[in-house]
């Protein structure tokens, strides 16, 4: 095998997906089952299914709702988590409530939220996504702020750093690794909720489209939807890692040195 690092990396990233696709291709090549159409047929259906307007009418609105919901949760989670993390009294007060809401599986909120915001509009779906994303962000931020190195806090105090400098240069960067953990969890919950929020009373959207294909027995189209969803997941994860690597370069570097790597 080649020693070139980029090619090596690409090989490891793509080997298993290619293997799985090949297996799928071979296993379904002569399939006559209605529910397991050949992969070749599914791939052939892909362009006509998604590139004739569905991208704009279904996929983009879903992603937009995910983006808005996630952004709301990000802002509220980090602001709220920082404040709660800084004040032990506030934490003691809010902890039981937060644990209660975190224990609720987010999908059960869908019908409840729909009662207040209506079944068909975007608002209910955005609220669902935002609420689901909020808890991992909030709780991880609280932990991140609480776990700040006490010597750093003493250092900031002894140099008399003002409140906003302490926030900007000490608290937020110090808690950022935990915030990133929360954001990663929130993103995967957000994708799930993006789909689930469309299963009830929506006629447009990626999730709604998959359900409609399934109900109208458009099986190859349904499979293309599932593949598209998976691809979106991969794309989001890669984008997230890209930003994480830049913002948390110091954290990764320090951790590697501490591990003796």
């Amino acid at each position, binding site marked *: 095998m080649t020693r070139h690092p980029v090619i090596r990396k690409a090989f490891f990233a793509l080997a298993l997906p290619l293997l799985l696709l090949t297996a799928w291709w071979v296993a379904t090549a002569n399939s006559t089952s209605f529910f397991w159409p050949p992969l070749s047929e599914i791939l052939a259906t892909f362009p006509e299914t998604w590139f004739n307007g569905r991208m704009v009418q279904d996929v983009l609105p879903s992603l937009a709702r995910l983006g808005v919901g996630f952004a709301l949760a990000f802002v509220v989670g980090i602001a709220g988590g920082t404040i709660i993390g800084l004040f032990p009294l506030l934490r003691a007060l809010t902890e039981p409530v937060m644990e209660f809401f975190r224990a609720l599986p987010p999908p059960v909120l869908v019908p409840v939220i729909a009662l207040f915001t209506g079944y068909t509009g975007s608002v209910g779906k955005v609220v669902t996504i935002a609420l689901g994303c909020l808890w991992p962000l909030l709780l991880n931020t609280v932990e991140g702020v609480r776990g700040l190195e006490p010597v750093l806090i003493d250092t900031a105090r002894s*140099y008399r750093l003002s409140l906003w400098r302490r926030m900007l240069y000490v608290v937020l960067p110090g808690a950022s690794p935990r915030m990133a953990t929360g954001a990663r969890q929130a993103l995967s919950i957000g994708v799930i909720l993006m789909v689930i929020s469309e299963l009830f009373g929506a006629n447009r959207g990626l999730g709604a489209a998959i359900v409609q294909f399934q109900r109208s027995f458009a099986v190859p189209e349904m499979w293309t939807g599932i593949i598209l969803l998976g691809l979106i997941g991969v794309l989001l994860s890669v984008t997230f890692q890209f930003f994480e690597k830049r913002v948390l370069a*110091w954290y990764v570097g320090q951790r590697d040195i501490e591990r003796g790597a």
Partner: protein
Amino acid sequence: MPMKTARLADEATETATLTAETKAALDVRSVQKTYEGQGRTVEAIRELTFEVGPGQLVCIVGPSGAGKTTLLRCMAGLLELSGGEVVLDGRPVTGPPDGMAVVFQEYGRSLFPWMTVRQNIELPLKEKGLGKAARREAVDAALAAVGLLESADAHPWQLSGGMQQRVAIARAVAYEPSVLLMDEPFAAVDAQTRAELEDLVRSLWKRLGVTVIFVTHDIDEAVYLGERVLVLSNRPTVLLEDVAVDLPPERDQLSTRSAPRFGELRGHVYELVQAAKLGQRPGGDVEEP
């Protein structure tokens, strides 16, 4: 901000009454510290009174658990006193005071890992309101003084332990404090680096005329560095003896440490610390630990 002005006014009147009676840079008056928590009270410091003159280098030693770090945190305004007061340049310390810098023992954890060396040193200067050019100059001068100019753009965790502690010292020096507190700063570095850093502290102290209070558990280090060594008793802490170090001001690792007077002083402080461990109190009475 009515609260702040009230406090400032308060400090102003205090200053007026205090400056008349003291010229010490740091005045520790009947300081007491008792920790209370979960139905248990621990008397850490019973009563400590001493003065440190401007520009002095004073070392504080004591057996482990003698409340050295507690005392330092009290002086730094990081810990509330249970009694007495600490007065810095005529102003009572009620929180981290202006004009004081602290170098902590845990060098690796007192530097901000998300900032470069330069940014670490620069941050307190930003708070002081220095302009960009002035900051750059101050950081460069401080880094040159500790011999780390070429590491300005590295992150602290990319440096060795001794280098990290030098960054912490550079940060304190760049801040231009009137009093520099050091809490066992070299406890976690190897012996060779330690000797280098000791000489660095001596030379910076001489050059800058800053008052230095250096807490250590190392008797040799205390005698080698200090003009005075304050020996603390075990808990609850009182001052056991204030030892004047009458060694020549020019010190170096080889000749100073092999001088007969160094040996005598070292022996004397060693005996005091041993006695302190056994519960010796000033005045000769022994209290069960």
